[in-house]
């Protein structure tokens, strides 16, 4: 139904490259600044949203011992599609299931183990401006804020490439020069019609970036 584009201006980058955020501004303050900008633009706040992602690693002994690179399964939820649950392999297929898929995963404990403490989620406000939907979220992992996600949808258009220029222009209006290049999903299906799982693939990429970004040694898998 919707065309989604998602990108991730890492907070630090935001600080040094473009918007002259004063030293020591927190993620929260930057989000508030972006919220303000959107509201000045005329966007209307319409409640909140969340996207979360749980990581499971395929714990089957055969795979673990065979020396292959370990495979991860990500189970994601999106408040925009409350009656669905998305299961994705990295660079692999995306499965859209009913919400009780979570219960199934518990039953499959012996094959897929939940990597506790690796849950990433993005929560924030949802804005509407004309036919645009903007979701401004704070990405948190564990209890710490790791970055900001900005999701922009242009609802009337279902073909991603068609509206790219239009979206660029819109994003420039509130993000000035942070606007990134076209997301990889566009390339995969250039003529394809948007589906909600495209959004989830983009969020997964984003969350994986967040995980890699954390340099501190932790209990996480990478």
């Amino acid at each position, binding site marked *: 139904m919707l065309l989604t584009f998602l990108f991730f201006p890492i907070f630090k980058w935001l600080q040094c490259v473009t918007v002259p955020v004063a030293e020591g501004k927190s993620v929260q303050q930057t989000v508030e600044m972006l919220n303000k900008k959107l509201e000045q633009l005329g966007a209307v706040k319409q409640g909140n949203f969340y996207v979360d992602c749980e990581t499971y690693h395929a714990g089957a002994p055969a795979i673990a011992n065979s020396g292959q690179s370990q495979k991860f399964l990500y189970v994601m939820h999106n408040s925009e599609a409350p009656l669905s649950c998305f299961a994705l392999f990295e660079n692999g297929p995306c499965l859209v299931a009913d919400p009780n898929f979570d219960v199934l995963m518990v039953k499959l404990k012996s094959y897929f183990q939940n990597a506790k403490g690796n849950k990433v989620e993005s929560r924030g406000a949802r804005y509407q401006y*004309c036919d645009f939907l903007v979701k401004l979220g704070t990405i948190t992992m564990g209890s710490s804020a790791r970055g900001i996600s900005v999701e922009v949808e242009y609802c*009337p*258009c279902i*073909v991603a490439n*068609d*509206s790219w*220029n*239009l979206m660029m*222009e819109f994003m420039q*209006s509130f993000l000035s020069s942070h606007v990134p290049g076209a997301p990889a999903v566009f390339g995969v299906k250039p003529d394809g019609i948007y589906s909600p799982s495209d959004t989830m693939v983009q969020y997964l990429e984003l969350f994986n970036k967040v995980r890699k970004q954390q340099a501190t040694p932790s209990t996480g898998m990478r």
Partner: protein
Amino acid sequence: MADVVSVGVNLEAFSQAISAIQALRSSVTRVFDSLKDGMKNKETLEGREKAFVSEFQDILQSVNRDLNELERLSNLVGRPSESHPLHNSGLLSLDPVQDKTPLYSQLLQAYKWSNKLQYHAGLASSLLNQQSLKRSANQMGASAKRRPKVQPSTLVIPPQYVDDVISRIGRMFPDMSIELFRPNGTSAVLLVTLGKVLKAIVVMRSLFIDRTIVRAFNENVYSEDGKIDIWSRSNYQVFQKVTDHATTALLHYQLPQMPDVVVRSFMTWLRSYIKLFQAPCQRCGKYLQDGLPPTWRDFRTLEAFHDTCRQ
């Protein structure tokens, strides 16, 4: 002040004059009553006639008396001042309490208004008479007798011909698919799907386009009961705007003698929306204005413009 006083005096005379009129009327009525009743029953014929004549004379005299009285009073009342263009209503201007009862100024305003209205209505009607934009048979001629004659031949086209024209247009534009429905009788409803951009519902009357509504590609074109939904507007502002422009286009493309050309021109115009989200405005060069892409397409050149950039 003198005026006010004289008005007061006049009022007294007025009430007297009114009662004099009443008296005159009743005496006149008595004349006719006695005439109607005729002669009263007396012993001799002569006596009858005498009594009748004397009674009649009495009554006539009283009529005369009343009339004289009325004439006398009418001199007292005086003529209404004719100097004022509004006649007696001009007396409202004498009201000293303007703030509480601004009747006079309101009256003048209303008068001006009605004058202007009449003037403009006259202009409009003469203009409208020159342009005959008669698109439906109901407006044709006031007399029911002549109506069948006046009815344009374009309204009685056989459905096969309509099907033909539509399918030919459909073949002309490969990126546009046209489905034809006849949900109610012979009038056709077209569902035009343009690429992956939009769906337009076009309601026809024979080969005239009556109404059109544009929705997003992913929006419902059928209502809950499975019928094609020709009423509800799109949820998206872009397509509401495009619907408005399409309605304008319907009025623009008019050629009563060749309705198939009209349909073809409209479809050609509609087809230019295939780049609705991709074409920047030809004037300002931008994609967005107030959150909307360039929704206007020029009728001749089919170039894209923002709604406010097109003038």
